[in-house]
């Protein structure tokens, strides 16, 4: 078990949240919820800021709405062959928000604030796992 396969490039491989990556590989988008205060977290957290935490895993539907987006034409060195690519922030129906790539199937012309999207787990060549925002 590891966290080293999450994302196009990983910088964190050790975490209490390794199960997130396994579930993502199995096609599930998981958040966490504090059983004490009820707060729902995405991205998931292993600890709740209420400090009385009792964290459990919760599957999210992935259904969300676009808040804002940008097309990047200039990238960090390790993403230089990917440009241009779109990044967006979307809000899940359940409340939390996610920063994720927008699928290449969506053109900048059709992107609209408030549009319905779905966060979909996907596997990349080389066994890396990510999620991206697609049209539902």
């Amino acid at each position: 078990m590891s966290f080293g396969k999450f994302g196009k490039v990983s910088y964190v491989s050790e975490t209490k949240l390794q199960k997130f990556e396994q579930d993502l590989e199995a096609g599930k988008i998981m958040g966490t919820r504090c059983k004490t205060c009820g707060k729902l977290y995405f991205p998931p957290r292993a600890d709740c800021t209420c400090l009385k935490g009792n964290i459990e895993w919760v599957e999210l539907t992935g259904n969300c709405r676009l808040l804002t987006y940008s097309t990047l034409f200039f990238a960090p060195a390790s993403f230089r062959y990917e440009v241009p690519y779109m990044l967006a922030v979307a809000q899940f129906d359940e409340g939390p928000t996610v920063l994720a790539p927008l699928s290449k199937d969506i053109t900048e012309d059709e992107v609209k604030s408030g549009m319905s999207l779905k966060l979909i787990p996907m596997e990349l060549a080389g066994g890396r796992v990510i999620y991206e925002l697609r049209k539902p």
Partner: protein
Amino acid sequence: MSKVAVIGVGQTKFGGRPDASIKEIAFEAFKEAVDDAQISVDDIQASIICSATHYDKQRTPAGVIAEYLGLNPQPTFNVEAVCASSGVGLRIGWSFISSGLHDVVAVVGFQKMTELSSAEVQEVMGRSGDVMWESPFGTTMPGYFALYARAHMQTYGTTPEQLAKVAVKNHYYATKNPKAMFQKEITLDEVLNSRMIASPLKRYDCCSNSDGAACLILAKEEFARKVTDNPVWVAGLGLASSPMTLTSRDTALNSFTCTAKAAKEAYHMAGVTPSDIDLAEVHDCFTITEIINYEDLGFCERGKGGSFAADGHTYLGGKIPVNIDGGLLAKGHPVGATGASQIRTLVKQLRGEAGETQVKDAKIGLAHNLGGIGMYCAVTILKA
């Protein structure tokens, strides 16, 4: 509790400095500040060295810089709050003096960014987001601020032309600042036709990587009155934070909450309101940031930052001149030096030494220094 004055300021020219090391650019700013204060190096009881250390090839740079400035065996250490490093450094210097620990303190901000390639800088900056959940998707600084720009446009109807006018203004004023990186005016069309970096932000909506250093000499009131007839007082300080991940912030993504909180504290401490401010230095890492800052600092109504910029209210002679030294966009943004450089500009103005860009009868100035993606914010109010 002693009042704290800024008694000396110094700054290198900002821009590429392939001829000098970090120690040498720090020395240039330091020497100018010590000469400006008309004190001796022996008067300085502590140094606070400010930089975003991830750009530094030197690890723990306070060590080599304090040595090179001749400031051993006095206390020294590094302060890192990314782009707000020296804004935070000033606050620590103020605390040292007002607590009675030290009488005179040097705050030195520096950065050498051009030793790294632009792509390396983007890589480093992308990792100034949360490396667990955001950097793995190729985030960049322009990308983060572009998300804010798009949200501001969607909510308030802010336009690319309004953004561009901020760049035109700041480049215009840079031509009047011999220490600024860019010395050429640009037109609205040049900004609008510049290449897209992270939509909707274009080349001229973004500041440039730069080398440079700036230094402030702070002193307690008794010492300040001995060495100068025109001390500039630190009248208000505010410092606040916001969550680093965009996903933990307010979903509107069109305001930096740490700015609003830091500004409220600083106004309260100085006993002033936004309308009392004679000029401001605000953190214009991107054109959209300057527009959002107008709103968060209370210079204009929420949502009206775009028209406030476009209507010329922030030029010299307008309601509140902002970044009339060129700002980060055109003066350059050597990350760790920026906060101290903003204070230098205000001090020169409040002493009436700003020459062509002098704000008439300037008595109160505000500096706003934002760190990273807007997770740290230092607001400082100075009074003549």
